[in-house]
């Protein structure tokens, strides 16, 4: 069964203080790893899809990387508006089409 573990559960940063969020996963036959951002009471907003080890994608202050066992979401010089819960999800060959999510990392960026 697919498993996703995200760490830390919560992270507080000062504006401009760069850091990384971790997503460790166990799957049989990865078909995609997905990062989403979720604001309180809203639906997840798509950020990145990664397919193979070594792949990297960037968008503004965010950069996602992938290895065979984990993915990192690097946040460079964060701003208060980056505060949200960041969710990682995987989909595998035997997943019955479902996304398996981690519990998320709650990021708070203080001005």
């Amino acid at each position, binding site marked *: 069964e697919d498993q*996703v573990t995200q760490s830390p559960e919560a992270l507080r940063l000062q504006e401009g203080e760069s850091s990384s969020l971790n997503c460790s996963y166990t799957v049989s036959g990865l*078909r*995609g790893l*997905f990062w*989403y951002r979720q604001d309180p*009471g*809203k*639906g*997840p*907003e*798509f950020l990145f*899809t990664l*397919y193979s080890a070594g792949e990297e994608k960037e968008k503004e202050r965010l950069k996602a990387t992938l290895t065979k066992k984990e993915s990192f979401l690097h946040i460079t010089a964060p701003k208060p508006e980056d505060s949200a819960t960041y*969710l990682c*999800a995987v*989909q595998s*060959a035997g*997943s*019955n*089409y*479902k*996304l*398996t*999510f*981690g*519990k*998320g990392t709650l990021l708070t960026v203080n001005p």
Partner: protein
Amino acid sequence: DAGVTQSPTHLIKTRGQHVTLRCSPISGHKSVSWYQQVLGQGPQFIFQYYEKEERGRGNFPDRFSARQFPNYSSELNVNALLLGDSALYLCASSFGGQLGETQYFGPGTRLLVL
């Protein structure tokens, strides 16, 4: 362009009642998936539909059912509501429902069961 839309936004029901949640996918998307998210947890997969056929089902009881219409919109039905069914219900759409395709989520329906 309109994203995934869901209705209603909020709903309050009592135990034992029935509820129907609705979802319209992004224009051109043929697959819809349903997820349940309780506070502090990641979304949990309930169903995926593609071209009106159920292609995947999560570990939810038979009280949960869904269907997809010819225009690719979808309904999630929950019978005999329990207190534990209180959650944010999310609908996600993708173009072809294939493995590895990005799923785009709607704003969700917040269900409270009293």
